[in-house]
């Protein structure tokens, strides 16, 4: 077996040192009744690298990769070009095959990267501090609500109708068990977000207002009035960003009064991967740092006075605080955070702004062309690289009909909100720098046909 270095001669020699007559003697604590006599039934015996690769490649070929067709899906995961050097660097064994930097003297690479990552995230979000990553945007969102509960000692979160419905589901799942109350709503197919509803719902029981920016329909609204209303009532504003590239073009939530900003980092450096692994971003005010979940890298000095980095503020964490920890999170999303950080370093501010401008310009062009199709209405006044169309037909079958025409044309709101009839004709279209003129022609043609 190619992954197992011990030879039979090694095993015999080692058993002798151990003082056991056979391997089975080492398993003597396992009751006879629980032991398998031979290998577990059902599973075939070991296979060659070639055979395994063929097995998986056969399944991979049954899927349609985003890069092979005109592709316009978003809603929390985005197709962006990732520079070749990103994947090369994250495959260096020193990153790939290391673990959580528990021994900082021999983990300065990972620790400095995390320090840089935290700094990049904090700046992107307009916040003071950030952690070393969460699993993904949805779990980061839930953790933010828990953090707001701990800070305010209140349990009611007012949730915008523009928050990704899967994020809402994750929060609802957890709220059932923690005693938090979530005031939620479904969006309407209009240009206005639900800021007024949120402000009206804030009261003295409110721990936080949760707003996605840009929202699930792609709409962009100023967060400042909501922040002001929340703060006046002693509540926090949690902003959720599912498309970080947007922040190269629009104002950062932290600049508009958000106290906690969380989101999905997948767009920068991390591929689509059918939903995971992704990387949750989490930032907040410095004064709240001790309530923040997750690992944090911090700067210090070594015994010779040289600058170095360590994991710090670990008295918040499960391995120290056990049942009193701020979160149960342990392993997070280190390698995806590295990918994010490398891609962000390659972009830099200049590149991020160019990338964002390109996305926006493309999206505006596509929105105008699609809105000109008879019967199709552009819902948004404002958007970044993603907007919602109201079709004259149900969007879900339209998406399937576009697949038959070789186009992955967007996410139907029927998929995200299956029980809300008023949204059934909604189609969310994302346009990134990967979209070509030919792709746009193909989408326009396909959509024309399926709504005709």
């Amino acid at each position: 077996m190619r992954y197992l270095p011990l030879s039979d001669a090694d095993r015999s020699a080692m058993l002798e040192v151990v003082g056991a007559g056979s391997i089975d003697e080492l398993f003597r604590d396992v009751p006879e009744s629980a032991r398998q006599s031979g290998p577990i039934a059902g599973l075939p015996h070991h296979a060659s690298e070639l055979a395994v690769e063929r097995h998986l490649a056969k399944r991979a070929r049954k899927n349609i990769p985003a890069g092979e067709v005109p592709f316009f899906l978003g809603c929390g995961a985005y197709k962006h070009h990732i520079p070749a050097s990103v994947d090369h660097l994250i495959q260096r064994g020193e990153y790939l095959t290391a673990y959580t930097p528990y021994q900082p003297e021999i983990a300065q690479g990972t620790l400095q990267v995390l320090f840089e990552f935290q700094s990049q995230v904090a700046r992107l979000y307009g916040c003071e501090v950030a952690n070393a990553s969460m699993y993904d945007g949805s779990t980061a969102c839930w953790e933010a609500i828990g953090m707001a509960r701990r800070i305010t000692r209140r349990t009611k979160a007012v949730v915008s109708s523009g928050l990704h419905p899967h994020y809402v589901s994750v929060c609802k799942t957890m709220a059932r068990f923690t005693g938090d109350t979530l005031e939620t709503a479904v969006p309407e197919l209009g240009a206005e977000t639900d800021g007024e509803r949120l402000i009206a719902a804030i009261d003295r029981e409110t721990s936080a207002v949760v707003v996605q920016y840009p929202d699930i329909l792609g709409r962009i609204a100023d967060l400042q009035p909501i922040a002001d209303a929340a703060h006046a009532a002693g509540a926090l504003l949690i902003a959720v960003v599912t498309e970080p590239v947007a922040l190269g073009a629009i104002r950062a939530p932290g600049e508009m009064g958000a106290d906690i900003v969380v989101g999905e980092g997948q767009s920068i450096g991390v591929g689509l991967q059918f939903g995971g692994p992704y990387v949750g971003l989490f930032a907040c005010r410095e004064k709240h740092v001790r309530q923040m979940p997750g690992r944090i890298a911090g700067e210090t000095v070594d015994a010779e006075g040289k600058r170095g980095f360590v994991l710090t503020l670990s008295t918040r964490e499960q391995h120290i605080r056990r049942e009193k920890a701020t979160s149960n999170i342990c392993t997070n999303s280190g390698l995806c955070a590295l990918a994010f950080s490398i891609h962000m370093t390659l972009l830099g501010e200049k590149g991020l702004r160019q990338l964002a401008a390109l996305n926006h310009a493309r999206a505006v062009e596509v929105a105008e062309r699609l809105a000109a199709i008879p019967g199709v209405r552009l819902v948004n006044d404002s958007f970044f690289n993603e907007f919602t169309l109201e079709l004259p037909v149900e969007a879900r079958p339209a998406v399937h009909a576009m697949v038959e025409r070789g186009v992955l044309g967007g996410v139907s709101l029927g998929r995200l909100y299956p029980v809300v009839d008023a949204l059934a004709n909604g189609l969310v279209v994302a346009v990134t720098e990967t979209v070509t003129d030919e792709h746009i022609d193909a989408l326009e043609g396909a959509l024309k046909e399926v709504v005709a």
Partner: protein
Amino acid sequence: MTINQSGWKPAAPVAGPGDTGTITGNRALMLEEALIFEIGDTDTTGVDFADGEAGKSRLGNLARTSEIGLPGLTEPETVRHYTRLSRQNYAIDLGLFPLGSCTMKHNPRLNEKVARLPGFADIHPLQPRETVGGALEVINELAFWLIDLTGMHGVAMSPKAGAHGELCGLLCIRAALEARGDAREVVLVPESAHGTNPATAAFCGYRVENIPATDGGRVDLEALKGRLGPDVAAVMITNPNTCGLFEPDMKAISDAVHAAGGFVYCDGANFNAIVGKVRPGDLGIDAMHINLHKTFSTPHGGGGPGSGPVVLSEALSPYGPLPYTARTADGVVHLVEEEQAEEFSQVHFGGAMQSFGRMTAFHGQMGMFTRALAYILSHGADGLKQVAEDAVLNANYVLRSLEDVLDAPFARSGPCMHEAIFSDAGFAGGITTLDLAKALIDEGFHPMTMYFPLVVHGAMLVEPTETESKAALDQFIAALRSIAERARAGDESLKSAPVYAPRRRLDETLAARKPVIGWKTPAPDAPKISGRNEVGGQ
């Protein structure tokens, strides 16, 4: 605008010529590297974009006006920055990484290759089902083998890591109890458990109580039985436990918990010791997470991503999270989401499925599923059994080779499983476990897990894994033996280890007392350094 300024940091990145005798602060292949904020600037980018004319803006009134402050580097500078930093990391690819309970084994590169096939790496989680059939097959196939290997009834694939899997298991338990109208408040956790266990139970709103261990390092069955009652929702057991021992009374524990109306959660972090040899389902376990990044060798990546599918008993399977995959008689693998969950349950499960809800935005860690499936198929039933046997043999070899110089508190009670535990008893002159660990660094090894589990004083938990050769183990044993002898002799020099690492011991107290957890642009009146690349001493 350049961000490249200094004067604010508590210390310079390198000590300078006086220290190493070099102008750069470098020592041949040991290269210092400054922060991107010190070497990059906001006008530099390593990505070229096609020129496009600025179109009309639809950003509302919210266009960014202020500077973000993100430094950029060109591609060669970026590659060098991250390559230099990588060389300051220890990794499995470099040598033995015996972190107990973390299962740091070799990561096969085939698995990296298949995970990057565009059919897996470049598909969107909300693509129509007819365009992702192969991905759903992979999820379902991995699910099938996980169930087969554990002898359980079902599996929840979406949890993102071990602790998220624990959460999933406890939510299933809570949902099952609620379904029978049985509100229970307490979760029992052994003192030796991973910190995630009590943290997870508390996260789900349970009160956590400890169960004591026997002197032999096992769960105290009688104490456990005495505590069981109508308020106990679940018992969380790690098996093999964190002392590296199999719980021989596991079935009796399960039977007692079930008789009292509770459920048994097993922390599967240590599944590597028994994979292919023992099926947890035969031990009466109701839920167990499987760290794909441990037993099934998806890379640890410097702290994730992990993946934590949870295998479930028949009693808990109906409550697992959405979405899930299910293969029907016609061979089609379905993706069951909120939309069709109820109907699917009615048609295919007689209405039994009552998911507790969604735990994460999408379907779980697809990138880890492909790797884990490749791992399972590569090893096969015979290879996986050999994995457990070699892992256990390697750990026992380390244990017996060192028990004369390191106190092994449970060695007398018999063989260990996949990890060997030692204590600091016998160290002289104030030498600690930490000192020994740091000295191992100088010998070219990653230290073992230190000070865990809490039930052993100065614990050292050594998990070599099955992917170490005898030669590698012999070298490790020789190094550890030598250090242990120095510790017993009270060799003061151990207290200043490591000497040869990129950094000497780091001041963790300072880091926590005055946290600096992000780069702050220095004040304008701070002394400026002109040009790039000066601060880092390149």
